[in-house]
């Protein structure tokens, strides 16, 4: 981890259709190489927070700066910024009409960042990295959930992002497939990737996180190292939450 701030969130607010604030006044600096794990009860706003980071949700107030670019400025070219922000979804969202290889090649080739051959080479290397090179010419419908999620991860990596956002990447998986996905994420963490992960996998949080955020009621109710959060939780809500999930 370096001292360089990669993503700066200041006074972020989000409400849907003018209703109550899902997020109120969240401030956070994510440094390059840092692994942040976001936990919290369902409906607390943790996914909304993550989706605000790459502007899949438009914040109602506050600002988000990524590599010095203000994403909340309407004039910002969001597409350009998003090329450097990978995102992994709970439901994988692979493109069902394309083969696995085409899934990985689509964005780099469409955006003219890579030639077909380069993109194909990168895609095959990435598939090898997650042990799925034999699936290259198959369609997503032939893959298990765990395989789909590993492919979704490398699809994002094919864009060579500076940060990876994970929105409950293992929540839709059968229990026996959770491990294979977490292992890919751990490897990625070891390789120095900046990561923001919303998850219910407390083991993963303990092992990988530099910092754990506990979001409750739309605010960061507590934050600290995994040890501080899991061994010495201070606020009562966090204590209750940990008791319920551990």
């Amino acid at each position, binding site marked *: 981890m370096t001292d360089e701030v990669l993503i700066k969130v200041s006074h972020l607010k989000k409400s849907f259709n003018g209703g109550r604030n899902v997020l109120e006044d969240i401030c956070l600096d994510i440094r390059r190489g840092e692994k942040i794990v976001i936990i919290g009860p369902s409906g607390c706003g943790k996914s909304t927070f993550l989706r605000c980071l790459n502007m*899949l949700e438009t914040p109602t107030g506050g600002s988000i700066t990524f590599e010095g670019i203000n994403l909340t400025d309407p004039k910002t070219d969001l597409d350009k910024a998003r*090329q450097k922000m990978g995102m992994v979804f709970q439901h994988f*969202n692979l493109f*069902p009409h394309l083969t696995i290889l085409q899934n990985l090649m689509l964005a780099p080739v469409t955006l003219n960042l890579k030639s077909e051959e380069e993109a194909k080479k990168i895609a095959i290397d990435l598939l090898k990295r997650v042990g799925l090179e034999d699936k290259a010419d198959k369609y997503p419908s032939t893959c298990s959930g765990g395989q789909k999620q590993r492919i979704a991860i490398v699809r994002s990596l094919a864009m060579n992002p500076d940060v990876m956002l994970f929105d409950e990447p293992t929540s839709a998986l059968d229990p026996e497939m959770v491990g294979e996905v977490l292992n890919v994420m751990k490897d990625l963490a070891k390789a120095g990737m900046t990561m923001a992960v919303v998850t219910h996998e407390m083991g993963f949080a303990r092992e990988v996180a530099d910092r754990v955020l506990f979001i409750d009621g739309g605010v960061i109710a507590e934050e600290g190292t995994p040890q501080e959060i899991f061994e010495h939780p201070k606020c009562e809500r966090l204590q209750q939450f940990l008791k319920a999930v551990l």
Partner: protein
Amino acid sequence: MFHSIYDTMIAGQRYVLILQGLGVTLIIAVCAIIIGTILGCILALMKISDNRILKGIGTLYTTVLRGLPLATQLMIFYFVVFAPLHLPKLVVAILAYGLNSGAYCTEIFRAGIQGVDIGQTEAGRSLGLSKRQTLFKIILPQAVKAVLPTYTSEFIVLIKETSVASFIAVMDMTKAGDMIRNATYNAWIPLLTCAIIYLILTLGLTKVFDVFEKRMARSDR
């Protein structure tokens, strides 16, 4: 029975009327579905756009064109809208059916596009693809597959509805059958002939689109 078929259809070369009618029916249907498809694509994109004016135009179009009976529309186009242009009846019929079909195609395509899981758009956009690139590379290919069955039935409905073209004195196949009935006082032979031909057309079309559907289902395993 063969005798009466001969008397009704073959004698006086009346079957030629049916064939001419069939030609007209096919010309109207094919030209109209082409116009309807192009119009449907444009209007569907307008209806899903963020621009309120474009959206409004699209909605107005589909509401009016789907809200009026086809025979009424046909006469409005012939006697009012296109009357000053003095176009041939067949052209008016093609335009009227095309414009009408455009409204239905719009709704079919719109539903198809919006039926694609929102996660697909999010995945595309989060990779840095623009809205347009996401639409053309990710959403539309999936939407096409999803709309094919309803699109087929729109084409079939169109073929069948050409039978009211005689409201503006276009001689389609139904009208041809009608003329034979008037000339021979035999109702069931010309009607049955028309019915069988319509059935062959619609069944044939269904089969053709079935092949497309199967081909596109490749990615489903």
